[in-house]
């Protein structure tokens, strides 16, 4: 049996400690060890973006990061976007624009879009389509997702 490692990390502004095996991905640690299931698994091989988190300021597929790599890092997951005051503008826009059908891809899209708007408040359709190309949605055909991100970028100005 592989040994376990103690990992101390910051998730959504809170210090979190967990034990993990070297073979466990960050996605698995978030979902099965820490118990935060908002981050979704669609493929476990970096091709769908359902597991997107912001990791030290960059968006990553958490299925491609090892749990032990989270040591000393800061990350934002979908659970970290809303505040007691209300939803993040992206979340609000996704609701208003009906940008989700089944919703399994939604956490990944919202986190990825936050990664974009945090860096580039001014975006157009082409930029949004390019940025979100690593996130698959099979339900919506992307139209309403792209509109929701553009709408949120307006709201956030």
């Amino acid at each position, binding site marked *: 049996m592989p040994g376990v490692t103690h990992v101390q990390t910051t998730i959504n502004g809170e210090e979190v400690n967990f034990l993990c095996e070297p073979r466990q991905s960050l996605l698995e640690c978030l979902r099965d060890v820490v118990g935060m*299931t908002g981050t979704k698994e669609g493929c476990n091989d970096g091709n769908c973006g359902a597991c997107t988190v912001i990791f030290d300021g960059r968006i990553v597929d958490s299925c491609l990061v090892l749990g032990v790599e989270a040591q000393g890092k800061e990350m934002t997951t979908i659970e970290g976007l809303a505040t007691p005051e209300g939803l993040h503008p992206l979340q609000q826009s*996704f609701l208003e624009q009906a940008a989700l059908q089944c919703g399994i*891809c939604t956490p990944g899209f919202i986190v990825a879009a936050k990664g974009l708007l945090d860096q580039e408040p001014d975006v157009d359709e082409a930029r949004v389509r390019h940025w979100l190309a690593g996130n698959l949605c099979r339900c919506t*055909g992307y139209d309403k997702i792209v509109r929701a991100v553009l709408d949120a970028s307006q709201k956030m100005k």
Partner: protein
Amino acid sequence: MVSNPAEANIVLSEVEFEVVGKRPIRPDGVDKVTGRAQYGADINLSGLIHGKVLRSPHAHARIKSIDTSKAEAYPGVRAVVTAKNLPFASLSKEDLGGDYMRLKFASDHVLASDKVLFKGHPVAAVAANNPHVAEEAIKLINVDYEVLPPVLDVLEAMKDDAPLLHEELRTTSLGETSEKPSNIAAHLRYEKGDAEVGFAAADVVVEKEFRTAAVHQGYIEPHNGTAFWNTDGQLSIWTSTQGAFAVRGSVADVLRQPVSKVKVTPMEIGGGFGGKITAYLDAIAALLSQKSGAPVKVVMSRVDVFEASGPAPATWMKVKIGATKDGKFTAVKAELSFEAGAYPGSPVMQGMMCSFGCYDVPNGLIDGYDVVVNKPKTAAYRAPGSPQAAFGVESVVDDIAHQLGIDPIEIRLLNAAKEGTRRIEGPVANRIGLVECLEAARDHDHYKKPLGPGQRGRGVACGYWMNRSFSSSLSMTVNYDGIVTLIMGSVDIGGTRASIAQQTAETLGIAYENVKPTVVDTDSIGYTFITGGSRTSFATGWAAIEAAEEVKKLMVARAARIWDTSEDDVEYADGVIQHRSDPELRMTFKDLARQLANTGGAITGSANVEPAGEGNGYAVHLVDVEVDPETGKTDILRFTAVQDAGKAVHPSYVEGQMQGGAVQGIGWALNEEYFFDDKGQMMNSSFLDYRMPTSLDLPMIDTVIVEVANPGHPYGVRGVGEAAIVPPMAAIANAINGAAGVRLNSLPMTPGNVLDALSGDGQ
């Protein structure tokens, strides 16, 4: 910049309502944008352990023996099961009689007993304290296989000397059963008039053969199933499914349990499109739970999803249409051979029903063949069977239009099915909206705009799906604060909580926000058919309307009791209960709700319905493409989807269905295919190699919702989920033909295939 949504999404309404037709925020929305919603794989139960499935590495082999002893002895392993643990193993042919084959197929699909029939076929499963240990343990199971030659193509499988998948399978052909075993499970036929007479009267006849590759539904959430089989015999299942009752039924069937011993809780579902009706993992999780005494969760990997859950069938088709020189069809003919996968049951019958569903034809003959091959058993995928058939039919219709020099929309209008048209398989159309959809497409800005420079083409195609009804159960309670809580058995896969709540609010004359819908488990509501076939907003909506009407009656009765008057003196209108002659006696819905407490308690209305009157669905798509002559790559420049929704209950989610269906169709047309080697190994079982469209591959998908009210529903609702995926493949093929002058008769139309066609190498 993004095009203006007001122009991009048009709704052509006939009738307006208060709540139906508006775009409120969905009730489950906040949970889904915050990551709180609980999907199947998110469940955690006290003492939960994890299961993994050992799958066949061969597409066709006999299982000589399975040795699980090493896996059982592996530290951390809690249970190991094989087909021997299924009740079928201990039932004899004599016990089962006429049910033998059906149960054998159902049980073997869960865990193979004597043969494996596709790469990925489950042969054993392990439950362990953690998923990695389970994964290690399945590798310790020793299966001795006798590898057999696989049959991987529908036409090969139909040959007399093809290797047989099932020695016991006989062909049912037009009511007769064959003597000899065969891979052809069924031969079906529909006929109207006399096709040969019709072709003889034609001025132009076009006949072509088509092929389409197997494609996957591609939902982002992998299959999952969690089970706990309690010592009192009660089996509980939590799973992502389109139909909790369907899972209950199939689990109870293969485990030989009464249905009421099985409780299925449908978790939030991350897409299905028809692919999450079959219960792949639930019975396995149940067996592992029974053996270990713990709750067991099993989740598929993406490779498992591709290799072992149902794709839509690959097909071979031959389509023939004859027309007069004015463009009027005189006869049509089609032969459809569909790969069912490892077990019989492809949607060839639906393909036959849909093939000429857009047209009013005097003479027609359609033959269909359901054929087993060594590939995963196919499953429904949005309008099952119709997209493949439409690829052939709509391509031939386009060729006829070209040959006769008639505009492609005009030839379709000339032959369009309308109210009173008798389809080849028999039914006569009610009021339908195909003509209106074609006219909306013809009059759309998209159809009028010149294509611009470059190798560009514009394609048109129609699509048809009958739309379904079946049973729905629903119940609603008026709470003392005036909020109506509504419980239903229909799983919400893309906004039906909203569309059912809207129909409820409309019927009761109250605000949408005052209706609170919940999807419940199989013990809490009556039998409800799957969410699929474009039935939920129609049939469960109907149940909501009926239950709301009951609530209205009970509210009237309660008011009469409070006012000490006869019920006949009280009326209910627009959410207000009032005395017919005394204007002083008047209560809003909320006022009366507040008085329920001491006047008889809460009020509940419920309904179990199987409404007739489903309204057929039609879609027309316009697409502009550009073909790169050097690479053969096709780019989608503009796409407009037109569809008759009857009445769009929530237009945003209707648009979403139209856009999502169109994009799945674009993937089916241009990229997606199951690619097998000659041993039946799928070579592209990841999202990297099985390439679904990304946001970068697409333009906005413009929509026109046409509303030709379905006379069979109080608000005119038709289903919308299916027809949306039917036209794109043919529309794109027709556009490529316009752009590059090559007609592609097989899917997908990858850059390589387009290049081959351009260089005259054929396909």
